[in-house]
């Protein structure tokens, strides 16, 4: 091979890890907004809630494609084992996302069936979230592997633990969504978002507690990693920071802070993400294959890196730009610029 034997695995780990986290944050808050949409009180607020994510949701969702293709490209063995293992959650997620995605377009272009597409939007968001949570739980639990194949059945991924992570993610995305709505709305609607945010927060705290309790019980190595001396000293900032961010998040939801709830929710996600990464490192197919064992050939990783290093910053820049263009509060009267 003409490519020098440079180790591209850490680079691709960072790119993929960053991409997945960005997906979780971005589509997380708009899926969360979709879940909260089911609790809206009237049509005006439904319109505003939907407007708050209408210009950006599809950009958020395309990170899922990059995540999927990225895993296929950088760590193909993990792709080949994990995807069939979570066959039904992925099926549910893809169909729910499809329904939810077209609901955006169809809801207001297809006036007679508005109610149906309203349901499609809310339930699609919830099902996609729940399915992603199950994928996460199944991933943490690990897979039954023989050779280079997934050796279990397509129903193995449904366990009490993965159902717990599924419900956890519902609360997590709802909290992100509530944070986003507090940022983008005002008045009564903002109060409503704060109220739902507080409920979501309680669910999130319970979920983080339960998952943190159960994860070390799944695998002895994880328990060792966190509680053995001196690791417990190095790693203690994670739970302590989580506690501090949680307190700050609760205060932000209760005081007048506009951006606090969203930032706090991002903080809680980041710390949970780091916690999972620390537990599983350096596994990409937990407890079976490391990142290095599952990596694509160096030649492949090098060829892709050329494009990724050039295009990723551009994609990030215009993503940021589109958020900038649609900044500020959504208001009910904006749409009437030419008819009022």
């Amino acid at each position, binding site marked *: 091979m003409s490519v020098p034997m440079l180790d591209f695995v850490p680079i691709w780990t960072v790119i993929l890890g960053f991409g997945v986290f960005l997906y979780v944050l971005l589509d997380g808050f708009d899926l969360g907004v979709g879940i909260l949409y089911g609790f809206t009180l009237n*049509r005006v607020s439904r319109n505003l809630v939907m407007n708050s994510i*209408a*210009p950006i949701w599809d950009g958020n*969702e395309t990170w899922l494609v990059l995540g999927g293709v990225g895993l296929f490209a950088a760590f193909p063995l993990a792709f080949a084992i994990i995807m*069939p293992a979570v066959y039904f959650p992925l*099926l549910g997620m893809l169909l729910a996302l499809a329904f939810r995605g077209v609901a955006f377009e169809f809801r207001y272009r297809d006036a007679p069936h508005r109610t149906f597409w309203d349901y499609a939007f809310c339930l699609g968001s919830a099902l996609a979230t729940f399915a992603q949570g199950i994928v996460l739980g199944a991933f943490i639990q690990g897979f039954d592997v023989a050779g280079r194949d997934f050796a279990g059945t*397509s129903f193995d991924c449904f366990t009490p633990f993965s159902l717990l992570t599924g419900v956890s993610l519902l609360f997590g995305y709802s909290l992100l969504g509530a944070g986003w709505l507090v940022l983008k709305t005002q008045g009564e609607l903002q109060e409503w978002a704060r109220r739902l945010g507080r409920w979501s927060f309680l669910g999130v705290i319970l979920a983080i507690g339960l998952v943190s309790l159960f994860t070390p019980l799944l695998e002895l190595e994880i328990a060792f990693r966190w509680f053995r001396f001196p690791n417990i000293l190095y790693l203690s900032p994670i739970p302590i920071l989580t506690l501090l961010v949680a307190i700050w998040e609760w205060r932000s939801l209760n005081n007048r802070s506009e951006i606090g709830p969203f930032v706090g929710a991002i903080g809680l996600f980041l710390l949970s993400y780091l916690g999972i990464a620390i537990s599983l490192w350096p596994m990409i197919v937990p407890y079976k294959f490391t990142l290095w064992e599952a990596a694509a050939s160096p030649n492949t990783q090098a060829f*892709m890196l050329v494009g990724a290093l050039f295009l990723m910053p551009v994609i990030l820049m215009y993503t940021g730009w589109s958020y900038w263009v649609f900044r500020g509060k959504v208001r009910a009267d904006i749409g009437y*610029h030419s008819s009022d």
Partner: protein
Amino acid sequence: MELDPILLSRLQFAWVIAWHILLPAFTIGLASYIALLEALNLATGREVYFRLSTFWTRIFAISFGMGVVSGIVMPFQLGTNWSRFSDATANVLSPLFAYEGLTAFFLEAAFLGVLLFGRGLVPRWAHLVAALMVAGGTLFSAFWILSANSWMQTPAGYEIIDGRFFPQDWLKIIFNPSFPYRLAHTVVAFYITTGFVVIGVGAWYLRRGRFVEEGRSMLSMTLWLLTILVPLQVFLGDAHGLNSVRYQPAKIAAVEARWDSLSAAPLTLFAVPDEKTESNRYALDVPYLGSLILTHDVHGNVRGLKEWPVGERPPVAIPFYAFRVMVGIGLLMLALVVASWWVRASRRLYSSVWFLRCCEFSMPFGFIAVLAGWTVTEVGRQPWTVYGVMRTADSVSPSLTGQNVLISLIAYGVVYLIIFPVGVALMARLVRIGPLAAGMEPDPVEGGRPDLPVRALPTAEPQVLP
């Protein structure tokens, strides 16, 4: 009956990709058409191009959205149902998919926003640039995805280590032997598909006396374009066929339902191929024509299916019939184009009722031909996923049972049958509303997406969604 996860997975892949392929078949041509309209508007200043561009951009937005939604499903299919294929080919194929995703993301998504929402925000030349970038992005996507598809048909530039493919030469992988032909044939097919939709819509307006200026522009411009593209496509199809004769002779033998190798082979116009008896029933043959088409020599040797063991032959009936559907549609298209010269010469292009009706009737032609052609090439690739190297039977995820795949196939079936017809109905509704004069109506696509739902929905009557 035993449920076969391989067959069901193939059916599922065929189902989700068949729906998905219809959207790029339309949007790739449409993106270029919109860019052309923007350029013409800028060059001539004629408002009709502006109205047409705005009109088609609205339709583009819906079909592009549906393309994204059905496209997200595709990479996951590879992992969930074809995990062994993914594991074996990832080192070679994954960068092509990754580049498809990245370039699509980069050019289409980035500039689509400007194209859709930026009419009032940016100068017209910048809007044209955005339209060109979106068109370029769709073509880049086609480039990478067809490169991957072609590599599965005519693999090159790889070595096999421990049963897995490893890259040796990226240029040979990307520009594998069938790729240039497939790319040209497919992109032109997509342009033609869009063209027939545009003339169908234009003819419909003309026959009803609505939006006459727009209808004339659509019909006239597009028929000139088709005058070039349809004959070009016949030539490209022939070249692609010769390429397949060289690299995938078994596929061609199935397409022609040719069982015995022959020199001076006839062309079988119609038959009922029987795989059990290895012969054709009710065959309607034209002498020498088979050799003439496939080798450009009336005495050329055409290889028959019996040269391959039964386990290495593709199914015969499906490629055979699908090919005849594709060519039949192609001939109808050619006839319509020739007819258009005649009505144009006699100055009845915009008034001849039978011609306008034919144009309307031909709207779905491109889609049918694309699906038929795609069926020929993919079913003709069987029983391989990587032609001659990796079998379809060895590509499927080993953990899947027939029952698993049956459940997912039914789910995809139901959901797609809800989503796609509604999408088509919405596009048809936009066509019925028609292109409006600029400034007459607030363009729902213009002026920022967050405004849309608010304007489109009544804001009174509070109502609780339980």
